[in-house]
């Protein structure tokens, strides 16, 4: 791994656990000595975690009831 640009290229596959062992070893070696790349890696991982947080984007009040009412209503209309 010659520089940060090479490291950046591999970050996505690294997070997906898709790097081959040798490349992974070289990347991790680079990360030990390069704070900038470590920040990019950590904050990218955190970005993904935040979007996956199950507490966020729960159905707001009323949405669920309206969904189930609308489905029942429309499907009953179709069956008539």
């Amino acid at each position, binding site marked *: 791994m010659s520089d940060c*640009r090479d490291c*950046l*290229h591999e*970050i*996505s*596959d690294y*997070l997906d656990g898709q790097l081959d062992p040798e490349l992974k070893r070289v990347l991790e070696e680079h990360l030990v000595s390069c704070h*900038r790349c470590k*920040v*990019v890696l*950590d*904050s*990218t991982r*955190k*970005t*993904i975690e*935040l*979007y*996956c*947080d199950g*507490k*966020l*984007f*729960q*159905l*707001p009040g009323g*949405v*669920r009831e*309206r*969904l*189930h009412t*609308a*489905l*029942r209503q*429309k*499907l009953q209309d*179709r069956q008539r």
Partner: protein
Amino acid sequence: MGDTRETAVVKDDVALVAEAKAGSYEAFEELVNRYENKIYRLGVNITGSPEDAEDVLQEAFLKAFQHLAEFRADSRFYTWLVRIAVNESLMKLRKKRSDRSVPLEDEIGEDGEPIPRELADWKPNPEQIYAQAEIENVLRDAAQKLPATYRTVFLLRDVEDLSTAETASVLSLTEGTVKARLFRARLMLREELSKVFKRG
């Protein structure tokens, strides 16, 4: 003596879909209960609008029920449902295109290198520092700054946990394109969130 656990067995999607196909609305409703949160989240993140997401939610499940007979068991029900919800969400965005504020297609090109500019450490555990509603807004605003083509790949792969192959199939892309867009989307979102969550 019967095994009481038998009554508590959770039916898998395949069984529920089969019952729903045979006319059981209760079975379909169980599928709705199972996936309504995820489909709503997908709708909010693609359209950027809770109101549009509610429409997407209703339309996606309604279409799923109406077209259930066409669903083939060679893919997951959830992946099929996601495809419907993505199409509904993108239709919402296309209708809004006239306001010129929604970058739907890739307008930034795929050749240029994404260069990280925000290089400060993040505050630890932003989800504990900021109010939930505040984080939701930050995430939604950041997602809206991406072209929909990048945003959708990120949402399907990283948030909805579809495989690269499933994402490629849902969006009619090659797996290579999915990987390239995912890489760029992750870095672009990181850049936006860093502006809010960095230390100092």
